[in-house]
């Protein structure tokens, strides 16, 4: 009962803020609404008892990605003319077709999926303990995550090297 109420509150927050994020004309406000959407998602994870995933969501998206967005927006300066330019007809049509295709794919996935749970229950947070997660991420056997983990770190290393080359003073 209580979980259902909280689920609907969170869902309303996520949907409302997602709508506001795409309809607002100020880019900084859009970033802030995006932050609320991400908080709502983290709330859903906490509701399902996945505290680690929820914390990661807050850490990576709130503490990392959105801060990076806001920082980048601050550095690039504010555009004083908040009026948006009117789009050409071809652009409008392209946007319409792209959104329709996206909506069709999303609806197909949602409708064709059989959702196992009819009632939302909050499992114990001990379901997957942090010890299990930690051992899985460095396990090399079946269902182990050592290879993806290393590949991601190579990607990050490449990003750092690239950033250094761009920022280096000659």
């Amino acid at each position, binding site marked *: *009962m*209580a979980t259902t109420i909280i689920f609907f509150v969170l869902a309303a927050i996520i949907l409302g803020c997602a709508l506001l994020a795409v309809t607002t004309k100020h880019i*900084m406000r859009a970033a*802030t609404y995006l932050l609320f959407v991400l908080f709502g998602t983290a709330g859903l994870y906490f509701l399902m008892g996945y505290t680690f995933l929820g*914390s990661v969501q807050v850490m990576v998206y709130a503490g990392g990605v959105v*801060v990076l967005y*806001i920082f980048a*927006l601050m550095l690039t300066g*504010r555009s004083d003319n908040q009026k948006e330019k009117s789009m050409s007809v071809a652009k409008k049509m392209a946007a319409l077709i792209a959104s329709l295709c996206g909506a069709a794919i999303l609806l197909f996935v949602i409708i064709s999926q059989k959702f196992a749970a009819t009632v939302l229950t909050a499992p114990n947070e*001990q379901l997957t303990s942090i010890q299990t997660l930690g051992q899985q991420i460095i396990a090399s056997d079946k269902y182990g995550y050592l290879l993806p983990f290393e590949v991601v770190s190579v990607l990050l290393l490449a990003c750092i090297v690239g950033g250094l080359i761009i920022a280096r003073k000659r």
Partner: protein
Amino acid sequence: MFDFSIVTKWFHSLLCGVMPEWTAIGIECLIVLLFIIVLYAILAIVLIYMERKVCAFFQCRIGPNRVGKWGLLQVFADVLKMLTKEIIKMRQSDRLLHDMAPYFVLAASFLTFACIPWNKGLEILDFNVGAFFFIAVSGIGVVGILLAGWASHSKYPIIGAMRSGAQLISYELSIGMTMLTVIMLCGTMQLSEIVQQQADYGWNIVRGHVPAVLAFIIYLIAGNAECNRGPFDLPEAESELTAGYHTEYSGMGFGFFYLAEYLNLFICSAMAATIFLGGWAPLMIPGLDGFNAVMAYIPGFVWFFAKAFFVVFLLMWIRWTFPRLRIDQLLSLEWKYLLPISMFNIILMALVVCLGLTL
């Protein structure tokens, strides 16, 4: 040690006897919320008074002494003044974000505040990823400060917010690394479990000897920077930026930033006390049984507050002793010294734990 979970469990079963469980949990959540807010306010009053007095004594002054006996009512007078101030509205500022920004800072402060274990069995948020959750939610505050600076549409707040963003993101790394050192020593991220281990086997700072002491010192430096306090108060350096990111705030908007700053100081100290100095665990010296028995009679929350305020005093001492750094010195201190030292420290702690060299 008295286990507070007896009281909370009794209260829960009492409520469950007269109503369904989910309403009982709802009422308990409201009580906990009220408890957090009241404690937050009381601690803010104590900390602001303490800061003014400690600052005064370090500068050979007397400090507030007119309002009430020894100036005890000064803080209440300040709050009344702040509540009745005119709220200045600026043209060309983003009103929505400007008004929202202090609440981000306050929300981060409240969430981290809720993680602290006050006594045995008296924790509010106690996940099995407690320490990680603590670091994660403390990152929300940065968003508030950046938004405050941007939405003010004025040059000093923007410079202050820029500095603050760079500073907070950098020093969060050191905080995470030092907390990781302690987590390696304890083998758990659950804060109540970390304290329970310290009550059983001795405080972490003694148990982990050299790496733990190193981690404690780095944590204090990084924590001081994370709270935007001197000598790291670059984001609001009053001699260069008037007040940094909250220059354009008046009345309670400024009040919330001020409140969050002091409570962040307390939260930082309380976390240092929890993970290094044993939290609510009493001082136990092996061999002195009579002394230990007397110490065990002192309730856990008294120990906790004594340790937390000891660390608060240390941080205030640092603040009023050292002059402010430059921003490049600040960043090179973190990236060139503290971070490599704490990485080395993690390896040292791993060796200590693996070779069984803990005390």
